[in-house]
């Protein structure tokens, strides 16, 4: 959990009263006495940077959207690179341990529902325009980063998944791999950009099954 150290650092480094035009304008906490990390935490959590009190769809408040877990901390590398190999291994191990499987094993659902979910960017947005989860199902937003069926334009942040089931078949091994990749991709690619759709609770088991059907079903446009 987030510790109070940035505040302590700020208060310890309490600046003298600033004088502008002979008038004392403010008692300032001295930002320059903090490390960039301490100052960022202070600005986010203590200095009114965000509305952290807003209720969020998963329960609780927006605060938890800014609190970092172990993966977040390990994978937040200034400059955008990867952490050292030992850290990557820790991230990978923790991810693999986070994965749980549906009762009765991995199933393919309805590819037509999966098609809608793979396209939809709805879900878990908060702030000035929060998503009402009672109104629509939460989508996986797969097309944001991946090309899937070629009847729609997908992004290129992630690899193309066009023809996914057609080229890979539907063995237990490939179904498990695809499931794991959706559930927590850090198990294979530690510090990947891709969200942990299962571990985070972003997608339900049913939604994952439907999206997997969209990827694997021979009838799905992904495999045409």
């Amino acid at each position: 959990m987030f510790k109070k150290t940035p505040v302590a650092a700020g208060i310890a480094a309490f600046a003298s009263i600033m004088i502008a035009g002979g008038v004392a304008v403010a008692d300032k906490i001295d930002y320059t006495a903090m490390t960039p990390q301490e100052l960022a935490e202070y600005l986010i959590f203590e200095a009114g940077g965000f509305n952290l009190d807003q209720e969020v769809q998963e329960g609780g408040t927006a605060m938890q959207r800014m609190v970092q877990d172990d993966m977040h901390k390990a994978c937040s590398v200034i400059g955008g690179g990867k952490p050292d190999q030992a850290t990557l291994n820790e991230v990978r191990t923790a991810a693999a341990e986070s994965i749980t499987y549906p009762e009765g094993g991995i199933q393919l659902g309805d590819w037509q529902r999966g098609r809608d979910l793979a396209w939809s960017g709805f879900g878990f947005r908060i702030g000035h325009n929060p998503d009402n989860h009672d109104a629509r199902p939460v989508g996986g937003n797969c097309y944001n980063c991946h090309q899937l069926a070629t009847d729609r334009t997908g992004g290129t942040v992630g690899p193309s998944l066009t023809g996914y089931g057609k080229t890979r078949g539907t063995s237990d091994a490939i179904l498990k791999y695809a499931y794991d990749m959706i559930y927590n991709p850090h198990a294979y690619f530690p510090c990947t950009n891709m969200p942990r759709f299962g571990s985070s609770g972003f997608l339900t088991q049913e939604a994952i099954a439907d999206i997997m059907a969209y990827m694997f079903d021979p009838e799905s446009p992904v495999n045409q």
Partner: protein
Amino acid sequence: MLKKALLALPVALAVGASANADSWKAPEDVLQGLIDSIDSMYLTQSEMNIMMMPDNPALWVADDGRELFHTPRGPNNVSLEACDFGKGPGVLEGAYVELPRYFEDTGRVMDLENRLVHCMITIQGFEPDDPAVRQRHGSGSDHMQLQTYIAMQSSGMAWNPPMEHPLEVAMRDAGEVMFYRRSGIADFNCNTCHGEAGKQIRASVLPHKGTAEEWSKAISWPAFRVGHDHVRSSQHRIRGCYWQMRGPLINPNSDASIALMSYWTDAARGQPAILPDMKR
């Protein structure tokens, strides 16, 4: 007629400025210069927007802003000509590309929006909850009109946020941490989308933070957003990014938002600003 008035402004500025690389340049010419200087899918992705730049609706918003800026307003019935955006009271030319910066009178690093709020309250006497101060978004808002007018006076000039005061450095460095700071239910940070050149979200090519020519356009706000049919600000962009990242609502008056802007402006240092820009 309106257009003629608009065109007179850049000409007047260009004549007044010295003929160096940092003199005023029409936004469409700045963009063309960047396109000519580098192979970039991001810069060239919308042929229609490039074509429409000379008729950018933001130019009319800037014109409304000029009227607002120079008209005595507020309880104190004075114009904003006494407002110091960092280069002296009323000096707008080149002021925006040197923001955010440290202001001695507030003891704070401020972006354009917060500086404008400060002047509307302290000089014009507006209450903080007056719609003129409070309403930040939409082409019809005083803020967007004023910001577009002020920013436009820096078109073609190189981004050059000062890093002389220790607070300016501290804010930029904290902004850098925020840029790379992953969190939330979707694990995103700013770098998820802006860490590699030539990547797309769906059909949109993303600007790469590490390619200064692209980043210069990316941070060139105010810009007319065609899909919104409104001129939008830097603060609006940051709010939208956190919304997409499933993050909380950022407070536009906060140092958190200014820190991010200090970092992103520093990342475009030396490249010419496109003001106002036009975006998808």
